[in-house]
């Protein structure tokens, strides 16, 4: 870790990540999305990190124990590309977001901040009859990259790398920025995650 990299997780993640709460609420109010309840944190697993070795136990105590615990349900899944996912589910979106933040933060402060890749939120668009902006029932993912501290939309159209609906993503990115989401400015950084396990 160099001079520039030591506080990667600690400082701005919450202020950037929490913009998703506002954006989600706005879109809900406009009737453009259905309530969202699922999200995930993806990281590169490591045998050498004690916290990661005991992740299930650790997360249980963080998410379930104590006052103000969100009690967000979670599952651990390994994908076929060597990554581990913490998949979270909560009917209350702002609880979901703070749980996602908490999980990422816990991994970060326990010495694995460089292993963190992204947090991913799943959102369904309802679409409206007269506007053809988004297809009805369109499933989108909003990916938060820990190294960039910003979101971008991801709309996969298949499981193969490169299968994505770029024009929908581009316009969605514009809309979400307008709704207050911290959107990644550089489109070249909008890397996909194919085969998300939720």
């Amino acid at each position: 870790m160099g001079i520039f990299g030591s506080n990667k997780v600690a400082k701005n993640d919450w202020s950037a990540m929490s913009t998703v709460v506002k954006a989600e609420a706005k879109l809900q109010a406009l009737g453009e999305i259905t309530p969202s309840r699922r999200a995930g944190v993806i990281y590169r697993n490591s045998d050498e990190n004690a916290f990661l070795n005991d992740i299930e136990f650790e997360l249980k105590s963080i998410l379930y124990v104590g006052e103000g615990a969100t009690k967000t349900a979670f599952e651990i899944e390994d994908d076929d590309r060597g990554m581990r996912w913490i998949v979270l589910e909560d009917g209350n979106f702002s609880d979901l977001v703070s749980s996602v933040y908490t999980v990422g933060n816990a991994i970060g402060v326990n010495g694995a901040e460089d292993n963190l890749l992204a947090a991913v939120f799943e959102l369904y668009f309802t679409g409206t009859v007269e506007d053809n902006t988004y297809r009805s029932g369109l499933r989108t993912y909003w990916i938060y990259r820990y190294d960039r501290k910003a979101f971008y939309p991801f709309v996969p159209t298949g499981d193969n790398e490169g299968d994505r609906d770029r024009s929908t993503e581009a316009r969605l990115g514009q809309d979400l920025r307008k709704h207050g989401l911290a959107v990644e400015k550089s489109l070249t950084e909008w890397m996909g995650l194919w085969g998300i396990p939720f």
Partner: protein
Amino acid sequence: MHRNIFAWPFLALKVSIMSSSPTTRKFHKDRGLVTRMYFTMFMLGFLYAVFALFLYSAGTAMIFIVPIIGIIVAVQYFMSDRLILMSTGAKAVTAEQEPELHRMVKMLADRYDMPMPKVAVIDTAIPNAFATGRNPKNALVAVTKGIQERLSERELQAVIGHELAHVANRDMRVLAIANFLVTLTSFLMTMLFWNMLFGGMGGRRNNGGGGIMMVYLVTIIVYFIGQLLVLALTRYREYGADHTGAEISGDPGALADALEKISGTIAKIPDKDLRKLQTANAFLIIPAALKGEGSMNLFSTHPPLQERIKRLRELEQRMRYGLR
């Protein structure tokens, strides 16, 4: 989209020609935009006056220069459509050759209450389109094969609507006058340079090299500022055409889609999976936030695409929710 410099002969000093003309307009204008355009025009005129004053006090004879420029500009003005065809390789097409395109142009021209313009196609894969003509009666709209192939009907319609908006807004005239002023200035600059090197040709009465150097410097500065103002003006006209086109079609998103598609911004979204990314960012010295784009704004004729798309999307939003 892109108009050749030939297409910009002559400007209507007033945008209000539009509203006072016999044809009724169903769209209203963006007030701030018009104000800024007037301001830019005013600044141009002001600059011109100051410049004339300077030349006068320096004792330069303008009698020879002005008519020459006048002729050049007149040629540009009255032959712009032919010049455009010649310089771009655009070929006029008949309704039989391009029935779909003709139908689309006709439909849009009707919405603007303007006569059917000439339609031309340019045989290139590069997606582009332009309009020219000193007034709606002499208008020409041209599209490239590339843009025809790449855009959907809805998007192509938005692009042609944008081009016809330039015609309806008399942008060619606006820009021609602005262009005229800058052309005049550049001519004068060359003449003065000539004078400075060889003397003679009306520069004799001057009291030595220092005066000429002074005039020369001032000319350069005036020319430079003039160019910037013209560029600012064309950018405003561009926003104006986006706006007018959107109001005519009622679908601002269509042009935004088209711009995104042809600009290649979308193509920047990578194929790569995030999991293939190594922890390279830890070594980056320049933080991502500092690597912002832009700074070429001042010099580009078209406003940054991002900004145009953003404005169109905002307009789309306002139209959708009925906020004005």
